[in-house]
């Protein structure tokens, strides 16, 4: 099931009705807590759109508190808290500057989705993994063999790569195959992760 969280609403709900800018760490922490509470209501397996469309400014401190700390909680390779996937929408050029800086700092990656429907992988990810993600994204649904055929890596290595991308919550594992996180919100609107 695809959920939608409007970050601007979370800001107004958690901090102040009048604010439209995401600045300062306490603000970022309060907004993240509000998002986490929302995620708790959603369930253990969910695809969530985090929407920044109505956010004016996002500074580095807030990007760290909201984006990086949220990902660190849900996308840890060792022990993911739950199977929650994120797609970030409404990211402006200046938001991106702050987000890229914090992703680099924590060696994280995420998927952004743009007005034209195109999805992009942003952050720290090695070239082969990026290529694998793009192949799955283009296919809509794919398995290790598809990546192996397209790139020339062994099937075992391709499977390991996809598994790692799934653990980083950049791919969704679904019916023994994989779906790229961004494309799942467009091409498979009826897919239910809580099934």
């Amino acid at each position: 099931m695809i959920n939608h969280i409007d970050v601007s609403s979370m800001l107004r709900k958690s901090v102040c009705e009048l604010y439209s800018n995401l600045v300062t760490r306490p603000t970022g922490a309060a907004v993240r807590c509000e998002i986490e509470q929302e995620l708790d209501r959603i369930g253990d397996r969910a695809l969530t759109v985090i929407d920044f469309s109505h956010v004016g400014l996002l500074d580095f401190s807030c990007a760290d508190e909201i984006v990086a700390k949220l990902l660190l909680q849900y996308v840890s390779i060792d022990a993911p808290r739950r199977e929650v996937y994120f797609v970030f929408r409404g990211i402006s050029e200046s938001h991106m500057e702050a987000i890229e800086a914090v992703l680099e700092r924590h060696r994280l990656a995420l998927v952004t989705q743009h007005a034209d429907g195109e999805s992009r992988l942003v952050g720290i990810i090695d070239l082969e993994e990026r290529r694998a993600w793009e192949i799955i994204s283009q296919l809509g649904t794919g398995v290790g063999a598809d990546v192996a055929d397209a790139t020339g890596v062994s099937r075992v290595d391709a499977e390991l790569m996809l598994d790692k991308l799934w653990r980083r919550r950049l791919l969704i594992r679904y019916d023994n195959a994989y779906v790229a996180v961004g494309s799942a919100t467009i091409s498979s609107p009826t897919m239910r992760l809580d099934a």
Partner: protein
Amino acid sequence: MTTIINVPHSLEDKSFEQVLDQVAPLPLDEKIIVDTRHARWASPYGLTALLALAQSRAERPILYVPEAENVSSYWSRMDFFKHAAELYELQGRVKSTKATETSVLLEVTSISKSDDVHEVVDKIQQRAQDALVKNLNLDAKITMRFTMALSEVCQNIVEHAGRGGWVAVQTYTWRVRLGGRKVVVIAVADPGIGFRQSLESAPGFQRKERWDDGQALEETVMRGASRFRDPGRGQGLAGVRRFVGNWDGKLSIRSGTARIAVLPKGDWDEDEPLLEDLSYFPGAQVQITIPERVA
């Protein structure tokens, strides 16, 4: 005993050192008179630093206000006297005015809590677009980045200073340097614990063989060190550094007895990257300067 501190005619980051040279040797509880009667001009740095100076004294100082009406009037429009009246015993005639100053993007504003940063950001966004894009011919992209940088330097007060400080933003024409180009300047000053003491409060902090204010500034500004263990910390100043680099600007931070500067790529400033053994002044004083774009 009371000591008179003579304020230079032109009060900005460099000439403020003359003020500190006079104040630093004095005991904190010694009464001082800060004499600005002959001041002809003050930058946002000069005004915010004067307020931080008063905060740093145990004994409430006296301020002789500028005699020139246009100077007094301008300091009023910058809201300087509004705050100075709470920190200094003002002596002399303060020229009050209701006129607005178009070059002022942000009057001298108190920063002590997170909400203050929100208010500053909201206020500056409304004014910055015109000033930066129309008056300084800068690309429209700068407005958000400029506000981000302002937010980060203000947050340093809230997160690290341990007491309140000041911010002011203004555009003006730099007549001596830059051959008459316009600049926009952000000045932030606090009389708090400063960079060195902030880093020393980190859990498990170990003093290096050479450890002083200059080293603390280098660690923080150039290497992103922070007193917090959280690896996400220390990104604010790194972001500010990138911002000034992208817009051929200058960042200078003074703390304790040292001042570090991230210099512009262009040749409009010939400052030293690191100055040490300056007269002691508590807290941190930050200045960001972005010059007008010329074809």
